[in-house]
């Protein structure tokens, strides 16, 4: 058998795999969402309940000013800045928007109170980010993203996505949920942010 024929076979198999992958991707059932993956996003209610109070709080501008003064200065050329637990707690208390980048199951089990869930690898990650914009999250809002601690890179991946969508003030709580929980800081289980 000639190499030309072998390469032709290989190309045909690649084309078949590509077509199947595309079809499967289009037919993939959307994740049944909970917490915010559903709706940090879609119904807006979670965001309104969250510390950020993006929709209906009358002191939104004041809060934003407070958050900007609290958050560490970030070089505008950086996509995000890593922060430690104390700073994360301060921003949380001041009402910053927290986004949990972990999988939905982990979020439902327990998460930082008022955090919304956008699982970065879920099929609705982009939809969640779009919904965030629709719900009124401004591009210069202070946003804290976290996942499962220092070995976890989901918060980095989600921050990159958020940055690509125009968000400027992204902070990664590097030690993430394990440290927060260990410190006995406020957590919530289930779908409620």
């Amino acid at each position, binding site marked *: 058998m000639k190499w030309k024929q072998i390469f032709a076979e290989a190309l045909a198999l*690649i084309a078949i*795999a*590509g077509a199947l*992958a595309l079809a499967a991707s289009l037919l993939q059932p959307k994740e049944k969402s909970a917490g915010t993956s559903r709706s940090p996003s879609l119904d807006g209610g979670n965001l309104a309940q969250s510390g950020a109070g993006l929709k209906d709080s009358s002191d939104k501008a004041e809060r934003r000013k407070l958050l900007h003064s609290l958050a560490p200065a970030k070089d505008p050329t950086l996509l995000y800045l890593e922060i430690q637990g104390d700073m994360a707690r301060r921003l949380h208390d001041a009402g910053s928007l927290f986004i949990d980048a972990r999988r939905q199951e982990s979020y439902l089990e327990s998460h930082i109170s008022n955090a919304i869930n956008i699982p970065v690898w879920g099929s609705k990650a982009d939809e969640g980010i779009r919904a965030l914009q629709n719900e009124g999250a401004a591009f210069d809002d202070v946003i804290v993203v976290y996942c499962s601690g220092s070995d976890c890179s989901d918060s980095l991946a989600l921050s990159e996505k958020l940055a690509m969508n125009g968000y400027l003030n992204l902070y990664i709580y590097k030690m993430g949920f394990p440290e927060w929980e260990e410190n006995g800081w406020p957590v919530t289980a289930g779908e409620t942010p």
Partner: protein
Amino acid sequence: MASYCRGNPVSQFIYNRYLSIAIRLLLGAILLYASWSKIFDPSSFAQVLWNYKLFPIATISPLSHFVPWLEAVIGLALISGIGRKGAALLATGLLLSFMLAISIDLARDISISCGCFSSAEAPQSHEQGIWLMKLDLLRDLGFLLLAAHVLTAPITWRQSPSSNR
């Protein structure tokens, strides 16, 4: 390629018809099995790919959908025998890519779960992770030899070696 079967008894053994069929079926089954869980959970596989810290984020989602299906198609081609040479060539390329990715992360001392057969492997310590990555490399090397065998085995076998002369 049929020339491998001529003369040399070692070649005659290695490229024995039944052994060749068994190797092809085994490699096909392995690839099909490896693709299974990833096809049904591309999100977890995307996370595995991201953990390699090798791919730009824009490529993660397409790769997480494409690679499992490519494994499945190669596996089916090897099992059915349709386009098996092309499938063996792709399997060789795929395995070399996996081995390269694992080697790069080993060199950077980044501990990852390879996601070879499942995307939901248990978390492990750094040392355990590095040790398992070395085992993954050895395993992939074994699979690579199988793929190379299928690629170089003759398409058809003669009734008797003597008939070659």
